Structures are given as C-alpha cells and as structure tokens.
C-alpha cells in the first residue's frame, strides 16, 4: 500500500495527527472537525465539533477509552444539507458502525471526511476510572508497543486494527503507525474521497510495504486470541439452557442496548407495550410452568441479537458498559460473525455493500427451500 509519511516528534502521534488536521484546515480540505476531547475533570472523553484551532490543538484524537461510541455521536447529524467538510477522527470499529448507520439512513455522510487510525484497542472504562492519570500513561505506552495486556477483552479479539490489502473496513483516510519508522506516521487513502484529499494536499506518496509484515502479524495474533477465547465461549452459548445461564446475571438495565451504536430504533420493541401481557396471561404462565420470571432477560438478549447482529461491528461498547460483567460483547460478536458469514457480509466494509436483508438474491439459501 502507498501513503504519505508525516512527522510525529517524540512519537507523539496525537500531536502529529493534529498538525496534519490543521494543515488541512489551512489548505481548505477541512472546514471543521469532530474529535475526541478530554473533559475538564480529566477523567473522561467527549466528542466535540469545532472550528477552533486552539481546541483542535488541545484535543486527543486517539483517546485511551471509548466513552460514547463515535457512531452514536454522529447520529445527531442525520438531517439538513451540510455545506461543510467535516473531518472526523475515529477508531475502525466506530467507522464501521458509522457506515452501517449511514446505510440505515441514520447518518448523512455527504460532507463528512472519515479518518480512521491504527487502533491497538482501548482500556476498559472501569480500569481507567480507578486512576485516569495512570491510564493515560499506560495507554500511551500501548500506542507504541501494542502490548495487549491492559486493553479490553473485546479489543484483544479484534482483527480490524488497520487497513491492509484485504479490505475489512471503510473510511476516507487512514492513519497508520504500524511498521512506520520512529517519529513518523503515515496516511493512506481508503476511498475515492481520500485519494482526492491527498492529491489536493500535494504530498509525496511513498510505498509503505514496511507495514505489511507488522500488520499481518498483529492481525494473526488477534485471530489466534479470538480462536482460543471462543473455545471457552462457545459451549456457554450453545443451547437454551446454556444461554439462559450465560445471561442469568442480567439485571435488565438494557445499558448494552443504550450504548450500542447499531441499536437505532426510536422505540425499542423490548421496551414497548408489546412485550407486556395481561394479568391473565402472566397467571397462566405461572400456573403452567410452576413459576414466571419477571423481565425475561433472554428474550431481550436474543431478540436484540436477531435485530442487530448482521450489523454488529464488535466494538465492545456493550460489554464495557455492562454493570454485571456479562461477556455480552463477545457473545454478540460470535453470533454476528456467523450470521454475517452466511450472507458474505462484513458490516462497515464498504459504503456500497447493501444491507443483506434489503436485497433479494435468487440464488440464496437454496438448502432451506423445500
């Protein structure tokens, strides 16, 4: 792959990215930015939209934790006719969710310039909150050595960390650090729009084949991790009894749904009146089964799975948020992978790939026709 090599003094990639963004502002390729910004209390990050050079300078494009999944932030930009060139810097999993939501008409991509970056993973929010200052330190080290000891479980299993020949996620530009010389980083175009931007900036395009090996290696490691972890996970998910046990701790707070970028309904079916029955029906259930458990968590989990697993991007936001430490993200990711495979679909892989449920293919699932 080819790309533009830029400087990052002292391996400070955040600083390097910011000066790239500001040079884009100067050259008129970007008008404004959506970036991650540390909150004043210095214990979390928020998404901001800004024109201000000073604010860009104090932002943290690559932040140690995923607070609000970026795609959920962009959902606010659904309507209207934008006339801006807004540069958005987000993780690959956030980009993938952005692409999915754009297909579901929940995000208008027209004037967004999507910039993804090599993501080593993020810290679990709970760990970070114990000592945010230390968290920053730990994460900055991870950005350099890609040691996965301290990152979220779901991130350890993620193989969509960087762009490579085989496309796994879509953005316009991709910032890469893997396999690039010390104190440098590179920018690769990942779409037509991206190619135009790099052309407009008149930067020298160089061959980046030094990335190939390190990127391949990390992807292989992650896939190995995933394979190993699933060996343990799968038996816990197969069959109704196992599944019931897996989710038995669930307290029905539905926070997994609230933080999920893909769950976009205005009124969730599982919070609607439709899942509430008459007193007679409850009494009937109690009398025929011997008891009736209130707030059936399994129905909610499996139902949500059927609704969103085709578009699940394995971002792990649900698992990070679960107060009961249920491995909900890993379960959804396992189901999602399998469902997506059936349709030869990878959510967020490209702008063009249509959602499988909205296309009719004549040659499909012949085996289940009678």
């Amino acid at each position, binding site marked *: 792959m080819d790309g533009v090599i830029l400087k990052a003094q002292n391996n400070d990639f955040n600083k390097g990215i910011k000066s790239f963004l500001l040079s884009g502002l100067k050259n008129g390729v970007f008008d404004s930015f959506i970036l991650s910004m540390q909150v004043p209390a210095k214990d979390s990050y928020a998404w901001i939209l800004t024109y201000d050079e000073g604010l860009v300078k104090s932002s943290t494009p690559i932040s140690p934790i995923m607070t609000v999944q970026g795609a959920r932030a962009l959902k606010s930009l*659904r*309507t209207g006719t934008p006339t801006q060139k807004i540069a958005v810097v987000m993780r690959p999993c956030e980009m993938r969710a952005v692409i999915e939501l754009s297909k*579901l*008409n*929940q995000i208008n991509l027209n004037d967004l310039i999507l910039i993804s970056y090599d993501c080593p993973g993020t810290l679990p929010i709970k760990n970070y909150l114990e000592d945010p200052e230390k968290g920053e330190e730990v994460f900055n080290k991870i950005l350099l050595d890609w040691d996965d000891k301290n990152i979220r479980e779901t991130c350890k299993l993620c193989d969509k960390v960087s762009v490579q020949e085989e496309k796994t996620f879509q953005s316009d530009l991709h910032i890469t650090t893997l396999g690039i010389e010390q104190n440098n980083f590179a920018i690769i175009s990942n779409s037509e729009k991206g190619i135009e931007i790099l052309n407009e900036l008149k930067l020298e395009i160089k061959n980046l084949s030094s990335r190939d090996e390190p990127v391949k290696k990390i992807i292989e490691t992650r896939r190995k991790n995933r394979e190993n972890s699933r060996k343990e996970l799968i038996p816990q998910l197969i069959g109704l009894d196992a599944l019931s046990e897996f989710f038995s701790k669930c307290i029905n707070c539905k926070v997994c749904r609230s933080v999920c970028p893909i769950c*976009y*309904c*205005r*009124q*969730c*079916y599982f919070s*609607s009146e*439709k899942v509430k*029955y008459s007193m007679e*029906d409850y009494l*009937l259930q109690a009398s*025929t089964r011997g008891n009736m458990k209130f707030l059936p968590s399994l129905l909610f989990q499996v139902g949500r799975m059927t*609704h*969103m697993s085709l578009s699940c991007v394995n971002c792990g936001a649900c698992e990070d948020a679960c107060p009961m430490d249920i491995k909900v993200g890993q379960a959804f990711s396992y189901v999602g992978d399998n469902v997506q495979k059936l349709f030869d679909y990878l959510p967020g892989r490209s702008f063009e790939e*249509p*959602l499988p*449920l*909205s*296309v*009719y*293919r*004549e040659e499909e699932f012949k085996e289940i026709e009678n």
Partner: protein
Amino acid sequence: MKERIGIFLCECGPNIAEKIDLDKVKEALEHLPNVVIVARHKLFCSLQGKEFLKESIKENNLTRFVIAACSPKQHELTFMIVAEDAGMNPHLFQMANIREQCAWIIEDKDEATKKAILYIKAAYKRVIYHESLDKKEIVANPDVLVIGGGIAGIEASLALAGPDRKVYLIEKTESLGGKIKEFDEVFISFKNGQSIIDERLERIEKEDNIETRLQAEVIDVKGFLGNFIVIVKTGDSEEKIQVGAIIVAIGFELINLSQLKGYGSLDCDDIYTGLEFEKMKKEGKITTKSGSVPKSVGIIHCIGRNEVGYCSGVCCLSSIKFSKYIQDKLPGTNIFEFYRDLTLPDKAYQKFYENIENKGVNFIQADDIKIANEKGLKIKYNKNKSTQPVDMIILSPAYVPAKDSNSLAEMLRIPRDDSGFFTEEHPKLAPVNTSAEGIFIIGCAQGPKSIKDSISQAHAAAGKILASIIPGKKLEPEVRISYINEAFCIGCQKCLNTCNYGAIYFDNLKFISIVNEVLCHGCGNCIASCNSSAIQLKHFKDIQMHQEIIEILR
C-alpha cells in the same frame, strides 16, 4: 356492545367427524366467555351448510365467529362471502384448521380431539381482536407489457391489443421475430420463418394499439396486478410505462458448446449447430468449408442433455427436419441421425419421422458419442466400438434460458427452476401464471418448447389477461395490508428495499416511511424488516398473533 361469539364445527363428511370427538369439542367450548352458540354441521361449504351458517349468524346476532374446518386456503373466501351475506364484516371471523392439522395427521382420536380444542380456542382468542376492514376498489390499468418480441411475444401482443387495450412490446435486439426468422422452413407447413414473422409484422404495423420498442430493455418494475409501473430503457432514454399485466417471453438460447466436455472436438470445421445450419440452408448453399458438397452428414441429437439434466423436447423434430433439408437439396447424401431416445410426442411427428426414415436416413441409437478429427471428421460411438466418418456434422444442442433471465427474475421477483427457466405457478393447473399475480411466462422463457406450444401459451396468457383485467372493471385490492405508525418509524428505509411491490415510499419532510394502500399486497416482508415494529399488518397485528400463539402454547 357486548360481544356475541359463535363457534361452528364442520364435520367435513367423515373427514373430521370420524377422527375427532366433536361432542367433546363442543363441551369444551360452550362455556367460554361471550360464546352464545356452538353448532356442528356435516359440511359447512355445501349449499345447506352455508345457509345454516348464515341463518345462525343472523338469529344469534353474532358479532364474531370461529369456524373449525379445513385449511383457510381452501374455504376462507367461501366463509367470507357467507359472513358478508349475513350482514357482517368478512374479517370478523377466524378459521381453525382441524382437518389438515388435526384429523388427517393424528391417529389417536383423543390426541386429535385435544389438539382440535386447543386450535379452536386459539382461533377464539384471536377473533376477539379482529377488526372490521372495509373494501376498496381501484381502477385496473388494462394495458399490457410484453417483454420479448419473438413469436410468443408477437402472438400475445396481437391477441391482446384492441381499441381499449394498449400493448407495449419490448424487444432487446434491433428487430422483432426472435429465433424463428432464422429458420428456413418451419414444420409442419414448411413455410419460411421470416415470412411467418413478416405476416405478423404487417399486422402489428396496422395495429395502432401495439407500441414496439426495439433495442430496449426493462430496467425496473414496481407494483402488481392492475397497476405495474415499468421503466423501459431504449438507447439512452428512459420512459415510465404503466400497465396492468406483464408477459415475459424472452425465449431461449442454445447451450454454449465450449461448456461441454466429453464430446471430443466440437470446435473443428464443418461442425454446425442447428441454428447455424438453418442459416446455411436459408442462404441456399449447403457446402463444407472447402466448398465441396458433403457426401455424408451426421446429425447428433441431445448435445448437452446430460449437462442440463432435461430433454429439450424439440430437437428431435428439428434434427429430422435437417435430414429433410439435405434430402431435398442434396439427394443421395448419406445421412446418419445419432440419438439417445427419440422424442416425438405430437400427433404429426411420428408420420414425419417414418417418412424420412423410409427415404433412407440412418437412425442410430447411440451412447457416448465423441467427435474426432482424424483425417476428416469421424463420429465415434458406443464406447469407441463403432465409427462413422462424415463430411459434415450438425449438432442439436440443448435449449437453455436466455441470458437476461436472472436479472429479470430478480426485478420481477418471480422464481426460476434449477435449470434457470422461469417457474410457472403450477406445472399442470397454472402453466402460464407465475407466483406474482399479473405476471405471466410464455414460450421458451418457461422451458424448451415448440413454436406451436409457444403460441398456445401466448394465447393462454392473453386469455387470462382478457378475462381478468376488463377495461372499466374495478379490482378489489387486498385490504389486509400494512400500515406504519409514525411515532415509531425512525426512517431507516429498510422496508423500502424489502417491499416486493414498490408500495412504500419515503416522506422526507416527516422522515418516515409511508405505505401506498393501493400497491401494498399485504405480504408482510416490511414487517419482518422493521426492528421497532413500527409497521403492522392489518388482520395480522402483533396482538392478534400473540393471543393466538399464547393460547396454543398453553
């Protein structure tokens, strides 16, 4: 108003009565709230049965009823009419299928009775939540779109066009006539193919109500019976055509010889397909490549039959016709017809075959035919045991679906069979209908066929259309259709793409999807695609289904 519900148990002759204890069923239902009558009858679909049902509804002032009988596929409509006759909205009843789903499949009478009670109770629970749905009427468009200007398409167009019915005839190539115009002589009159087409073209010319589009293709189809909206592309221009019915007559192709393995050298000189040979005959010169007159000709049937997995059914006859061509043109030529089975089903074919055979054509039943080019063409057969040298070979390759059939099937949302031909609704009972109402398939688009059969199908489809879409007559569209709750719709537009009928459009101002009540067919696809259940199907609402299921799972 207090509900008054009736439950009617059909004996279906001995079908239900002998397998289910209907007295026990009656007993179990009589005390259900608001049930004012539980009655049984030998055969509710009979004249007396219907009368009894009607009178019972009236006498008891029923507000709703359940009828436990056969499958709603068989008699739902029958009882809807009875309900209407009794002055009731036809949607205020529910059928419980205790014949196919109980009586016919359960040996044990007690078990069958138990299950029947469960099903009737479920129907009773459901019917409480039924709502009156009012009839609508729409004006059906009598015009017809015919895709494909071969003999089938032309015949259908001519049969349909008239003072109050326009036909749009869409042809992909630059001229009408399809494959027939390539045939020098057409069995049984041995008329020239082009002249057969020319006669019809003259009639099309004179017919004001046939509009022909040449070098044109269909690029989008929406709607259903009575109201299709079709986008046709001719050259660079696109036009919107509105019709009430669509006939697909896109014909066939011959199997690509390069796909075939196991026949030896098919790409040598002096090997022709049937269509190539017709052309040669038409040009009046049957010669080998070197220009000499062939002294011997081998005609091979069934090329590709194993590969496609069916007998094309028409090649035997055309192969025999080729013998006639050669006998007429080049008397004294040695002719060898190699066949696997002779398929000559029609009343005129046998005589023709006998006639040709008597004139000295050698008919050889052979297996494992291979063509070799060793100092001239040789046909080896029966596992290389026999060899016949010839100067020229004519192949009869299998008929395969036209190239466009895949894309057209997806656009029209009609199924194709394993071979890729369009599938008729029923192979015997509905041979030109498709699963989509208002879309018909004729000629070789449906499967390999003779010219005669293609024309019969063209007339059959025309008859179906003439009888169902009568100019000025109104159609009653489905009333069990979907509707969208504005408060829940989040505007993701998944439903737009899943709708088979183009019946959902998007309101950009409100940012919600809206159902076009005329185009909606009530198939339910959109409901399955809507995560937030913003879409509901009338008569199949969540509450109606839930209540029924809860009762069954009791």
